[in-house]
């Protein structure tokens, strides 16, 4: 018998979720109905419900996107990353950028380099990124997201819910000019 076949159903589900989270991937209930799993959707959900009450699986978390609900382990994927990854997975790009900017402005606080969205896990091509920024600026929902241009020409974003314009400007110049050695 394969080693993982000896595990309980709950342990097998947890193992899969933890492993996928390590690689930055969610698991859906649908995946638990496909090979190598043999659960029905009802059985998978029943196991997950039981796991939610089991101390051994307290790391298994649900997160909701616009298109689906996803499972991850916050042992191997941080909650911050999971919130970001929902948008990446569903390619909800406008919300992805806006939420990243608000998070940066409120938590660190810092300005967000537009260029950062060119890299993983966002990997936005410049043309697409420009389009996303245009939509943010045109949307009533994201009026707090501001674009700021450094004296070097580099573009940054911030949320004026959390950062005043003068501070944002100072942070941009610190980053681009003063600390650039």
């Amino acid at each position, binding site marked *: 018998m394969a080693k993982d076949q000896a595990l309980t159903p709950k342990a097998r589900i947890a193992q899969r979720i933890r492993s996928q989270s390590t690689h930055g991937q969610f698991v859906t209930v649908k995946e638990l109905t496909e090979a190598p799993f043999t659960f029905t959707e009802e059985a998978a959900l029943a196991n997950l419900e039981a796991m939610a009450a089991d101390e051994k699986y307290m790391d298994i978390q649900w997160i909701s996107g616009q298109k689906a609900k996803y499972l991850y382990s916050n042992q191997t994927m941080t909650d911050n990353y999971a919130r970001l990854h929902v948008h990446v997975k569903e390619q909800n790009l406008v919300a992805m950028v806006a939420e990243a900017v608000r998070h940066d402005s409120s938590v660190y606080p810092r300005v967000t380099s537009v260029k950062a969205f060119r890299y993983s896990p966002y990997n936005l091509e410049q043309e697409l990124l420009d389009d996303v920024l245009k939509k943010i600026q045109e949307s009533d929902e994201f009026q707090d997201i501001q674009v700021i241009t450094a004296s070097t020409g580099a573009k940054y974003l911030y949320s004026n819910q959390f950062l005043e314009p003068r*501070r944002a400007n100072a942070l941009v110049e610190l980053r681009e000019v003063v600390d650039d050695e």
Partner: protein
Amino acid sequence: MATSKGWSGKILRVNLTTETITTEDTAKYTDFIGGMGFGYKVMWDEVPEGTKSYDPENKIIFGVGPFTGTGIPCSSRTNITSLMPTHNHLIGDSHMGGHFAAELKYAGWDSIIVEGKASSPVWLRIENDSVTIEDASRIWGQGTVQSTADVCSIMGAEAHVAAIGPAGENMVNQAIIITGGSHSAGGHGGVMGSKNLKAIGVKGTLPVYMGGTKEALIDLDRHAMSIIGSNNQHVVPSTPMPWAEYHHNRSRWTARPGLFWGNANPPVETGECPPEDMNSVGLRCQKGVFDHGDIAEDYTTRMGGCQSCPIRCHSQLEVPEAEEYGVSRFAANTCVGWSFPRSIMLKGYKDGSTGRGTKEALIATVVSSNLADDWGLWCNYNQISRDFRYAYDNGILEKVLPAEEYNSIPWDLLEAGDPNFLHEFYRRVSTKEGEFSHLGDGSFSVSKRWNFGDDYYSAATWRLFNPVLGFPQHHSSETAGQVGALINLMFNRDAQCHSHVNFTGSGLPIEVQKEIAGEIWGSPDALDAPADYTRMNPYKANFAKYSIVRNVLHDSLTLCNWMWPLQVSPHKERNYLGDTALEAKFFSLITGIEKTEAELDLDAERIFTLHRALTVKQMGTTDMRNKHDVIADYVFDRDPDVEPFTSGTIKMEREDMEVAKTMFYEAMGWDADTGAPTRACLERLGMGYVADELEAKGLLPA
């Protein structure tokens, strides 16, 4: 004789005038730990005030410490102590990494004291106990690359060499000593040149003994490796990762899926590098893209670094186009070792770009870096390019250079962004060719000689933090306000202290940083958020003192202060705390002398107070507050429409900085009015003899 633990137990003294080579017992100096501490003690005891940098009476001390050669992470640093020709001949240190330090230890030496002056060019050959002064007439005049190769051709490829280039030989004030092709110590190349000492070659086969067991060392190493981050102890990745709660795009933990050492064969992907994977620590920092932009990925062959360093912060590049300009296609360096050579091209590059990020910028940088290191020219933390820019853009060069000289310089190449200009720049400065070469004198000297305007000393653009000694800001008030400003006041050159900027630049959110600051320095108020400063308080003085004391400790042990102290870690389960007692734990294990964190810090406080006492003696005044600890106007006068301590400015307030000085002086136990060490302070640190000498000279505060 008992075997010395940690220290090799011997100091080498070489008198180049008398050609005598003697050995001394390290025990005489161990209250000063090693490296920097030994250097200050020798300078206090043996070099009288009034001595100038290039006088034969000046000495130059190459120091390593009890950690060097032990394999403790990031411990192969060489500290070089002597008078600083650029900065009013005051005591100062330059530092280099590489493998030279460990090799010196394996040859059985804790320090080399070089004194006197050779009658003709020589180099020093060290092979364990065999030390000889060799004729350097064949290598004098060569660049550092050929000089290193020549010494290795005699000693063998396994030798490690510290050499000067023509800039040092010609006693250009801004000259380096370099080892391993890219590890340079700025400021003392001319002192070696003044002694006709071209190079030191060292080869060692001896052990470094330790007080503890091998198993205990492995355990402590594992602990250190478990909390170590990336370069500058940045503990979050630069892009979001599944394992990371936080990220910061200025983090030097640049590894990510899809980012490669693109010129390796086959290319090496840096990948995710989660913190628990010790085998990928060396992949965390792809410094090529950090220093040059994305363009460097395809040209990065690998990351290099120092002996015993797992971090690897030197990007090793291959840029074939550099050969079109008569230099090697290979270059390695890090940080200002790249940005200074790049910025000599004042008018940008052939493609019209300025700054970094384009291929033409990369080519020019590699050309310039090769030339700077081979000629052996120092940048004074990039101030030389700002001095050049000020003089060029303000038409000063046209006024001060003789017409024939001015017309002989191919300015058209500079204007066109042609890297061929760089040959002219480095040759002229390094060989003291013409008036132009005074750019190498040092910022204070050249600015006075060429009558720079008041704005040079007072405008933020030019970054001259200390207008009296002529050194630039180096993580000053822009880094943690008064803390960075105080650190930048206390040395006699640009501050080589990174304890504070490593902390503020770790990538962690401000609330996490403040919590840790509270644990280390007594209150979260020790740290202000960037561009949201508050007034001075005693906890900031604690932060500043701690930063300097640890910096000094590291340059004495020796450890890399670009990594240590490990104040933070990448681990949420530790609340991102590092382990500030780690130096003391290693010290106790290696030397067999039990010391607490506080006891070891006190030793470092002794060293830094001796530095201050040396400065008082050399300047001939106790009034450090007004004569030495001077800050440029731009720090206070920037953002004229904004009050200090309002959100959105890094502007400081003059009165508050005087309060800051007072609090810092008091934290050090120095005189609160003048900033000079008191008798009580010196006696507390076991340096009553220093107090006696200062008192005899009228240099002890009342």
